[in-house]
Each structure stands twice: as C-alpha cells, then as structure tokens.
C-alpha cells in the first residue's frame, strides 16, 4: 500500500493552497504551493537549478569521497589493531565533537572562498562517521574469519580486501549513507554561512531579495537532492557490490 504514504503530504499541500487562495497571502516569508511550484519551474528552465546543484553536489561528493575515504582507511587500520586504536582514542575523542562549521574560519583563511574551502570542511565532517562506524564494523568482523585468513596464509592486503571489507561492507555502506547526509548538510550550511556559491547561497539570496517562493523552491530541491543521494547509494549497495553488501548489517 505504497500510495497511502502520499496522502498526508498531499493533503497538507492542498490545505496550504486552499488557505492561500481563501485568505490571500501577501507575505515576505510565506508563499503558496502554487507560487512555489512556479518558482521551481523557473529555476528548472532558466538553468539556475543546474548551476547551483552542480556546485553543491560537486563539493558534497568530493568532500564525501575525500573525508569518507580517509575515514574508512583509518577505520580499517584502527579496527584491525587494538593497540593503535587505544593510542588514538583520546585524539579522536577531542577532535570528533568539534562542529564542522566551527572550522570554517580556519579553512577560509587557508583556502579563501570557493570549492576548496567548502570541500575541506565537508571532508572533515564526513571523516568522523566513517571512522567511528567503520572502526566498529571492522572490529566486529567474525574473529573466526580472521583466523581462517591467518591459517590460509593470506597477506595483510588480501586479508583486508577478501575478508575484512566484504564482511564489514553492509555497515560500511551504512556509514557512507550517513556521511552522505552529513556532506549535504555541511555543504548547504557552508554556503549559507559564507561561501558565495551553490544551493545554500541561492537560498540566502532568495531570502534577502524577499522571494519566499524561490526560497521554498530551492528548499524543495535540496530535499530532493538529499533523497536521491541516499537512493543512489542504496542502489549501489544492493546492485553493484554483490552479495556481501546486500546482507543486512550485523
């Protein structure tokens, strides 16, 4: 009964539209669903959408790959070595809780405005979920399988590639999906706060030029982008990485 899920949102939109028509909204902060839809169409047709989406998506994906990839690599090393994991416990505990937006001034000084600053902050933010969840996933790999790999005489590289990663894959994907959500949040936040590009910046421009319809339309597109990012990762997990990835996380 999939269609049932759509009843409530549809009803709310209809009510909002009815309210706007009946009472007539002339507001600097609200727009009727119809106006929002028209603004969304304009953004789609005049190319603004693609330009701003490309900027945000590019930064989010680059940051996700850099930070998430580094987090994953560290997670494997720390997950396989209890002594290294103990050694790095406190540094991690100290750096991890720093809100990623708080390091914006530092990266702004280093990189100035533009992609590099935004990507660096996103990478910082994506590093942690992959490190923490990845480490737990690797440490949770069935010890028997690691013994099997030792007895068979697999080297370190083969052990990671053939045993550890496949065994931890469902949870590694979970970590990547969380990190993807974080990447988008941080990208838009950085754009709203400082960086003059992407969807966050356009959102702020619409707001400051008193265009609530465009503002809500961009918000809609940000939501759509986040949803499709997650859907793409889910698709990759279930279709592109084989049996190991498709198993439920354990």
């Amino acid at each position, binding site marked *: 009964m999939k269609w049932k899920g759509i009843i409530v949102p549809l009803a709310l939109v209809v009510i909002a539209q009815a309210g706007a028509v009946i009472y007539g909204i002339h507001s600097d902060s609200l727009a009727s669903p119809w106006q929002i839809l028209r603004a969304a169409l304009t953004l789609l047709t005049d190319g603004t959408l693609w330009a701003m989406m490309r900027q945000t998506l590019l930064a989010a994906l680059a940051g996700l790959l850099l930070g998430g990839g580094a987090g994953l690599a560290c997670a494997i090393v720390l997950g396989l070595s209890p002594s290294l994991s103990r050694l790095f416990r406190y540094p991690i505990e100290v750096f991890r809780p720093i809100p990623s937006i708080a390091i914006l001034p530092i990266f702004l000084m280093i990189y100035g405005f533009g992609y590099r600053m935004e990507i660096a902050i996103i990478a910082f933010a994506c590093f942690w979920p992959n490190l923490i969840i990845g480490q737990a996933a690797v440490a949770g790999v*069935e010890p*028997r*399988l690691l*013994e*099997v*790999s*030792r*007895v*068979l*005489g*697999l080297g370190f590289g*083969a052990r990671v590639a*053939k*045993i550890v990663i*496949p*065994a931890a*894959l469902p949870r590694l994907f979970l970590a990547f999906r969380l990190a993807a959500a974080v990447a988008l949040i941080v990208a838009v936040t950085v754009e709203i706060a400082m960086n003059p590009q992407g969807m966050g910046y356009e959102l702020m421009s619409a707001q400051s030029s008193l265009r609530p319809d465009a503002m809500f339309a961009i918000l809609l597109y940000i939501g759509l982008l986040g949803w499709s990012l997650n859907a793409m990762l889910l698709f990759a997990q279930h279709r592109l990485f*084989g*049996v*190991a990835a498709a*198993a439920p996380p354990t």
Partner: protein
Amino acid sequence: MNRKPLTIVEPFSPDAVPPEALIRFDQVSLRLGGRVILEGVDFEMRPAEFVCVVGPSGCGKTTLLRLIAGLLRADAGTVTYRGKPVTEPARDIALIFQDYSKALLPWRTAAGNVSLALEAMRTPKAERARRVTELLTKVGLAQHADKYPTQLSGGMQQRLQIARCLAQNPAVLLMDEPFGALDAMTRQTLQDEVLRLAEAGGACVFFVTHDLEEAIYLGDRVIALRPNPGRVAQIFDVRLPRPRNQLTTREDPEFLRLRRSLFDFVQEIEH
C-alpha cells in the same frame, strides 16, 4: 597418492624403525589470562598418523591444536614442526573449525570459498577453476558449487570447509571437534570420508573430540588429557585393522576393550 596402503593391522609394530616425528611437543606450557592452561605437555606425531585427543572441557584440547596451527605461542617449551619451532601458521597445516558456519565466507559461493585457499597459495587463475571442481568433487559437493553456504546443510558446510583445507595440500590436518554439531548419521558418513581423505592424501591428522568412541574409531592413537592444568594423562594405542568399518570395527573386542578403559579413565578424571 604415493602413500603406502593403509591396511596395516598394527600401524606401529615395535620392531619397525620409528619414523621421524613430524610434530613434537617438548615440555610445553601455556598461560592465558593468568590461568595455567597447559603444563609440561610432551608428545610426538609421526607423518600420516591419525591422533585423536580427548578429555573433559577445559583441559586444553583446542589450545594444543592452536599451538600446532601457529595461532598461539607456548610460554615455555617448544612445539616443533618438521624440526623447526612453530611461530606462525604454515601453508601446509590446515585447520578445520567446529563452527563451520562462522568459518565460511557467507558472501562467496562454495566454489568461491574453496578458491580462497587457492588464492592464498597464489595458484594461477587459469588453474583455479579446475582445482576447485576437483576438490568439490572429492567431498561430494560438485553439484553445489554455485550455492552459498547458507543454502547448504550443516554436513555439507563442514564438507565445504574440508574441501577448502584440502586445497592447501596439507601435510597436517587439524580438526577441532569438527562433527560436534552434526547429527549422528551425518557424523558417521563424515568420519569415514575424513579417514578416506586422510589416507589418500597421506596427511597427519590431529583430531580433537569429546566423543570417546569417535576417537577410537578414527585414531591410530588416542591422547587423553587431564585438566587443571591441562597435561597428557595417558596415550592409548589403537590396534584396530584398517580400513575401519562403522559396524565391524565398533563390534571388535579390541574396540570394546579400549572403549571401556577410556570411559573408566575419563570417569576417574571427572571424579
């Protein structure tokens, strides 16, 4: 298959020249977590010998096996394999775990699981498929090559693990209560298969079990351990003809005599 046929009635007749020991425990002691697990363990295993180890739980059966496998190191004394101290796992020592479901890679098919051992040995890719088929045929799983472990029964999964170990061309097969979780019928079938495979491959087998009859049925010798701390209590020579047979061997007066003395012995330990 260049092994002498195993129809010898008395495998170790006293006047025969004793073959050189393949594995030797020399005053081996081990502590884990402050507890003494093994103390002063001494024994030898000859090539192609089938040794079973019995004893109450906590007597260090599995620990002995893990020492040979190179997964553990002795605190005192030495474990030697082919005259050299064991410091890490060797390619020609294979280990079969009791919990087959945990020891198999659930994301690989039966063929893929066997292939893992070949990949570890750097068998050329072109040769692998042929070897995999050969090994799966050996354990009767040829038709199940494309199934995943979860699609196989317990007995078949254990067979698959055995096939993976045979891929290593082992000179030593270590088996840690391999049939403990299987039903009686499957267990008997697999006992005979292991005997057949060990004979054909000329491998020395170190077989841990808590089933005394299984130990007598399979072994050339049965080592009985005593707990707290684990040490060798007694070694029983099994002078039963080979090939063994589930019915006649188990009815043999010598089998019954051994069974009696092992049972008495274990009762004595436990009280």
